[in-house]
């Protein structure tokens, strides 16, 4: 029994493993194949040595007293953790939690409370005695408003488009970065860093100038390439064109640096031998990518896709500056819609309802993201 308590969770003895539909699971409910992924990450290892690695690790953890290495910890206690020491992590994290609760927790609570009140004018904000609790009336009003659903649908479409484009382009550029010379890679990485540093407001303004109807560079280039009707084409006249082409371009452009550099870094974990072995076995580049690289970068790829989804769902700044602080209803994604309702119209409670709805809509993705972070973090 002591053996199972003192050994590291990673080295759960065989007898405590159980198998369920999702694969082999150890006593802590963690999937065993996950440990195998973790071992693959360390360069030079391959799957066949995983079990022996786990076994040798458990030996190194001082479970075998006969070797005379590090003395085994006293029975009944975890190594390195005294009774007071068990609280040390919580004490260390306490200041951060206090700051988070203060800065984010209180406003979040107020938003949820506002969603159940009728604070829909500046007057009610200024004179709180006029506020009333209206329960779920605010929710019924927002959820039965057709415009809300148009906005939600539009946001999902927009997010789907932007996430797909940015992750796909990110992967392509990350792969490309691995193929070019060192100097080209350094140059491109530096340029990407500069792009990353540009604030979203500036990106929106620059893209507005690029896509301007008169004097815009994009129109001129299209005209030079033969589209004579493009001479003074107004990209913003049709909201669909403006949103799904221009705004999407601005957002994807701003999202690429993180994705390219991050995915490129994840790809460095792919052992060169594996790729070479695949090539020797006759795999073409696409197969090599699909069967060798993709499984290894999968955890990070899932992470970035969830993050991209969350960020792109909330897009506000680029749309705001692309439409000069007055976006037409055709450009309203959830982020813009709740700002328009809350701050421009002073309908604070309606805006809070929309915020709560937005959080709930993103909940599935948030949960997937947090699970992924815990999964990756737990492998340390």
């Amino acid at each position, binding site marked *: 029994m002591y053996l199972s308590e003192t050994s590291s969770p990673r080295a759960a003895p065989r007898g405590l493993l159980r198998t369920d539909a999702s694969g082999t699971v150890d006593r802590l409910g963690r999937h065993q194949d996950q440990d195998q992924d973790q071992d693959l990450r360390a360069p030079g290892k391959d799957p066949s040595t995983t079990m022996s690695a786990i076994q040798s690790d458990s030996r190194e953890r001082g479970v075998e007293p006969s070797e005379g290495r590090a003395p085994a910890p006293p029975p009944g206690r975890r190594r390195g953790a005294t009774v007071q020491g068990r609280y040390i992590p919580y004490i260390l994290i306490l200041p951060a939690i206090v700051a988070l609760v203060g800065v984010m927790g*209180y406003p979040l609570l107020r938003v949820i409370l506002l969603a159940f009140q009728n604070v829909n004018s500046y007057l009610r904000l200024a004179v709180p005695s006029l506020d009333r609790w209206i329960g779920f009336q605010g929710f019924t009003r927002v959820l039965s408003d057709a415009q809300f659903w148009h906005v939600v649908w539009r946001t999902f479409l927009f997010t789907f488009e932007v996430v797909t484009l940015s992750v796909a382009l990110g992967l392509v550029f990350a792969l490309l970065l691995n193929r070019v010379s060192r100097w080209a890679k350094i140059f491109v990485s530096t340029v990407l860093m500069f792009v990353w540093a540009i604030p979203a407001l500036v990106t929106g303004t620059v893209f507005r100038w690029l896509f301007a109807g008169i004097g815009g560079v994009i129109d001129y280039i299209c005209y030079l390439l033969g589209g004579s009707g493009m001479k003074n084409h107004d990209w913003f*006249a049709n909201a669909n064109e403006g949103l799904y082409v221009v705004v999407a371009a601005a957002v994807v452009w701003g999202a690429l640096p993180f994705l390219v550099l991050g995915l490129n870094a994840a790809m460095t974990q792919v052992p060169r031998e594996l790729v070479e072995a695949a090539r020797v076995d006759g795999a073409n580049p696409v197969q090599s990518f699909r069967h060798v690289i993709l499984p290894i970068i999968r955890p990070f790829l899932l992470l970035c896709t969830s993050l991209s989804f969350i960020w792109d769902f909330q897009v506000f700044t680029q749309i705001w500056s692309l439409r000069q602080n007055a976006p037409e209803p055709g450009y309203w994604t959830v982020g813009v819609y709740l700002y*328009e309702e809350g701050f421009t119209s002073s309908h604070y409670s309606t805006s809070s309802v929309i915020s709560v709805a937005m959080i709930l809509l993103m909940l599935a993705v948030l949960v997937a993201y947090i699970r992924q972070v815990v999964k990756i973090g737990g492998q340390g």
Partner: protein
Amino acid sequence: MKRKIAAAAALAAAALTASACSSSSGNNATPQGALSTQGAGKTVTVWIMNDAQKGWPDVVNAAKAAFEKETGAKLKIEWQTWSNYTTKLDTALLSGNAPDALELGNTQTAKYINAGSFVDLTSVKSQFDNSAQWLDSLAASGQSPDGSKTYAVPYYAGARVLIYRKDLFAAAGVTTAPATLDELSTDLAKVQAKNAAVPNFSALYLPGKDWYTAASFGAGTYGVKGVIAKASGSSWSGTLTDPTFVNGVKTWYSLQKKYSVGGATVDESNQDALMAKGNIAAIIGAGWEAGSVVDPKAGNPALAGDLAEIPVPGTAAGTPTPAFLGGSDLAVPTHAADPGLGAEFLRIFTDTANQTMLAKFAIPNNKTLISAYEAASPANQATGEAAKAATWFIPNSPNWSGADETALQTAFSAVATGTDPATALGTAQTTILGDLNAQ
């Protein structure tokens, strides 16, 4: 686990109690204003729009010097911009970060007056110079709806005029300024024909999101009372879709379609810079915009002698298209650290000496100085005429917000890209009436 639940519950309870206790006493009576000159050792913060910084910095500096000399306080001016200003005011006026005096637009005052965010200046109004001759519409924007109390002091007014390149017009054979819309259309056609070879040439540049100008054309055919919405008792009914209003908007659209290139979905914020580039023959803008066009830093000083201004011609000679009477007011927030000193600064800022200096650049806040304004330059004469003629205003309701202005921008920009005016204005009207009639 149980400990965690207990901790979370305690936290939630504490937060709920804190939020309940944080609501203010909700005292609706605003403090009575008083002027104070005891400023030794204090710093007074004032928010002024950067229009003054660009247009009449001497006026501000003179007021600052006089204030500091009289009260002994130090004056700190924080320059503001118009975009999203009300969002900033919403939070500043309710927090402890309110300035001691501020400037805001005359379309923005109703909301704050209704919520009691400004100090009641009625008792000290007589100590402000020329307060009995304040311009009626500007003064009204600073008063309570029944006119009995004054919460904001008029600062300056402005009206839009037609600014045109008289050299381009003369080269096309137009020697006299157009007096009616029909004459304007003929003249613009001549200018357009003469400059057909110039790329992207606009005889009259009309941005689609410039809703003030578009609605002015509508008011030209509809009339100046009840533009956008009409109050009947406590509820509002819409007038945007009224056929006479729509006719005026159609005139605007036909001018836009024939003579304006490329501005259908942009607003008027950069029209001066575009005119300075040389391929625009006329714009409709505030009188001071002519100065921006020839500004040495942001414009083209070579155009200095080539610009002329007239009130926007209307359907009949002698009656210009009604202009929107814009302007700014000055107020003292109730949560100001030192409202007495703030009010004293406003008194000095709007006194006769400073308003006379201001009258060279913008319409001053009282009728006695209008002649000084018009005498200052020919550009001012056009603006003065436009301001003295019939002018229109937005529905004077505390529920008027930036969202209504956005709805109007969207509607007129849709008209400019070809949507049927009645449909586009109908959509805007639904939004606006929803706001105005909200409880």
